[in-house]
């Protein structure tokens, strides 16, 4: 295991340090709360001569991602950071980045989407980009924001993948929460990420290339399905990189992370900073003799169907937490879980909790309540609540789909 240094950092600083150590060639970015500190930290690295690459402070997120695409096609390592409305403004171009198979890394500090305007965390930006063809990793605390950002470069630039990677972290709860963490020495971190491997660089005049051609009926379908093939088949590469990183750092990661699931009757499936709170809740209930567990989704896209199927196989009741308003249907993580259950002939009582919108607090008490709901279903041998429940919603209580 490599030598490490203890630090106090928040999620933004953790991601910034990983960016510095990866020796990025071009960062093109635009500030937006709550990811602004990443852009500011990186500016300071530039001002202090700690990074050698170009830092392009553009006039919008749309141009940030456009410059990232132009730079990555040029032939070098590229990264950026954004949140919420900025992410929404980028959406057109994030599809271009994946369609051109460019290994850009983006730290997405998750925040609600307006209206109403809200600067606090939820996953509506992450969900907005879920079909954009990016690999999406989820960091649940500052340490993970650092570790996964380093892994992201290695995954994105792997010749078997060549796809952009987003590393998500919850706005404020991760991005602005100071915690003790550990980082690798610069040489070890860079050694892990490795030198950039060029593939069809625009800047090589010996071999001119055309990026972003037009394909109509004859070729579009073939291109998109091959792109999907690369994305779906990135799962084992993600696992390989996470394993290699674990050997270096001693910190284990997997596409789906299980906590006390083996004999659990009731499970919570969730992503983001709520994972830490759920872990504490599981510990508390386990002490009281309750058979409860948690499944944390680390890899949101490509969705790790097989690993999730294995994780839930013994559960009797499953509560799925979505931190985004599903607007007219059930939550996206719920839908993924339901699909995996159908595909595996798995039956369990399934409830969907919409929580934490716009930074609304979710505490161990709330999560205990969810486990109580699930236990009630287990006892009754059927779902006893409407499918969609809310947590800590003020005013009139709301649920959906009897």
């Amino acid at each position, binding site marked *: 295991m490599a030598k490490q240094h203890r630090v106090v950092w928040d999620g933004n600083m953790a991601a910034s340090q990983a960016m510095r150590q990866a020796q990025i060639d071009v960062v093109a970015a635009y500030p937006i709360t709550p990811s602004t500190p990443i852009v500011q930290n990186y500016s300071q690295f530039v001002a202090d001569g700690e990074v050698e690459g170009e830092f*392009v402070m553009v006039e*919008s997120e749309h141009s940030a991602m456009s*410059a990232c695409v132009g730079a990555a096609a040029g032939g070098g390592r*590229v990264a950026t950071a954004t949140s919420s409305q900025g992410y929404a403004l980028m959406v057109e171009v994030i599809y271009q980045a994946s369609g051109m198979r460019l290994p850009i890394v983006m730290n997405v500090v998750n925040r609600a989407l307006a209206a109403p305007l809200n600067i606090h965390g939820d996953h509506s930006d992450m969900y907005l980009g879920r079909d954009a063809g990016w690999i999406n990793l989820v960091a649940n605390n500052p340490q993970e924001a650092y570790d996964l950002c380093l892994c992201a470069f290695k995954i994105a630039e792997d010749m078997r993948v060549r796809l952009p990677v987003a590393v998500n972290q919850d706005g404020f709860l991760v991005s602005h929460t100071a915690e003790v963490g550990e980082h690798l020495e610069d040489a070890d971190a860079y050694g892990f990420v490795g030198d950039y491997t060029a593939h069809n660089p*625009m*800047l090589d005049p*010996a071999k001119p290339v055309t990026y*972003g051609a037009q394909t109509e009926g004859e070729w579009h379908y073939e291109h998109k399905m091959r792109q999907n093939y690369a994305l779906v088949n990135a799962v084992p590469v993600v696992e390989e990189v996470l394993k290699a990183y674990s050997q270096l750092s001693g910190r284990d990661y997997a596409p789906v992370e299980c906590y006390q699931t083996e004999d659990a009757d009731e499970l919570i499936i969730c992503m983001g900073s709520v994972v830490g709170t759920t872990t504490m809740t599981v510990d508390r209930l386990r002490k009281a003799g309750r058979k409860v567990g948690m499944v944390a989704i680390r890899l949101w896209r490509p969705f790790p169907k097989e690993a999730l199927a294995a994780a839930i196989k013994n559960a009797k009741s499953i509560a799925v937490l979505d931190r985004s308003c599903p607007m007219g249907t059930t939550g996206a993580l719920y839908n993924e879980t339901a699909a995996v259950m159908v595909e595996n002939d798995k039956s369990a009582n399934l409830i969907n909790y919409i929580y934490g919108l716009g930074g609304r607090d979710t505490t161990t008490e709330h999560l205990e309540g969810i486990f109580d709901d699930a236990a009630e279903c287990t006892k009754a041998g059927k779902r006893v609540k409407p499918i969609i429940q809310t947590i800590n919603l003020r005013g009139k209580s709301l649920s959906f789909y009897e």
Partner: protein
Amino acid sequence: MGEIKQIKNLKEFSTSVERFQGGHRLCPGCSHSIIVREIVNATEDDLCISTATGCLEVCSTIYPFTSWDVSWIHIGFENAAAAISGTEAMHKALARKKKGYSDKPMKFIAFAGDGGTYDIGFQSLSGAVERGHDFMYVCLDNEGYMNTGGQRSSSTPVGGATTTSPAGRVSYGEKMQKKDMTAIMAAHRCQYVAQVAPSSWKDLVKKAQKAYQTPGATYINAMSPCPTEWKFDPSMSMEVSKVMVDSCVCPLYEIEYDPQTHNYKYTVNYEPKNKLPVKEYMALQGRFKHLFKPEFSHVIDQWQRDIDAQWDYIRRRQDAGV
């Protein structure tokens, strides 16, 4: 700094190595391809090019074909400048790290239509120019959204009939003044800004070379007669271009900004011996046909006054040296 290509005559120029190949699907008589060839063939340095969505992009890179013998990228309609700014930044970063792919000079160009420049790409262009990336931005200005069937843009001239500013029983077509994009780009303190027309090929090539040699962002407004939507016979493109220049509808001029003195130097590169009335230019094109009805004759009269005033203004700036 790269080599300046010596160009003696049109034959030599037209037979030089092609970097923008034929076989593309631009309309017969389209001025875009002529302008693009004149610009990319004006240097022997290596090139990286971005192109906004539009006629040039759609017609030059239909997979699995490409007309480009230089590296080229298209992302979207509004971001040709941002895209090439990223590629140029990567070039600088790799050169600094001594990891470049080539030691030879590399030039960067963004091509966009007037829609991608005057309208939807305006912010991206303004940002990239303000940041001082070393690239040439070329607006292929055919005064409307011709790739989507001829809608008006903020470059469409007064009285022009387009599919979204049609002439009708009570309307003479476009009501708004054409935006003065060249002046706007000069106000960004680009060190070199110029207007060109494809028929004046020597002037165009000379200006492209000047732009290649100028550090930072430069802007070329290339007026591009469009047979399909300006409604003239494809064989007439260069004739329309010539009359456009000789009537001073498209004055050939350049503005050089001196960052030391903050002075703007205007140069009129061509003064027609016999300045033609704008009526002759308008009469060549179907998009102005309705203006020749007696009830709309005031539009043509106003055009003449506007063009005269604009021509006078540019020459006064030249004479004043500021």
